[in-house]
């Protein structure tokens, strides 16, 4: 079985990659993917600590967090589709108005 240090270090690495993507990228889809990477880092922490504490609640919360991430991705992509239809771009620097 994988020791918790490895899982938590991988989780920190995933969090760093996602944070770097959010801070530096301007494409909205890449920012959404970075948010998903950060969510996956949190889910990995849930699973690691569930195995550490012998509590299935952590794995249950991981399943629920995956469902929430799916809903977030669906709504986010629909919003970006609408933004592209109104603004002609999904570059976050160029979107300055909330309503067309």
């Amino acid at each position, binding site marked *: 079985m994988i020791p918790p240090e490895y899982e938590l270090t991988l989780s920190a690495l995933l969090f760093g990659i996602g944070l770097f993507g959010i801070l530096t990228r301007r494409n909205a889809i890449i920012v959404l993917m970075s948010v998903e990477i950060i969510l996956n880092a949190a889910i990995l922490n849930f699973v690691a600590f569930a195995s550490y504490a012998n509590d299935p609640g952590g794995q249950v919360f991981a399943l*629920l967090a995956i469902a929430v991430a799916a809903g977030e991705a*669906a709504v986010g992509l629909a919003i970006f589709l609408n933004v592209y239809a109104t603004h002609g771009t999904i570059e976050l620097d160029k979107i300055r108005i909330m309503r067309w």
Partner: protein
Amino acid sequence: MNRSDLTMLLAVSLLTVVVAESVLLVSWPSELHDIPAYNNTNSSGQGVANTLFNSYSFTVVLIGLLLAAAMIGGIYLAKKEVKE
């Protein structure tokens, strides 16, 4: 990659190293527990499915409602308006 991106990379790398180092400095126990997906030996077992459908059954219903709302909202946001 411009200069601000390099600064961000440095800051995020530093944060990641600090978090990973703080994790590695903790002495974690070597014995880990294997949680089964479903425990059919008793009704209130330690399986993931047992916990999900016994302790968190209302949460499963709420997640279903959330996914349904996300689906309807996504369709509403993404549909094209028909010009008459």
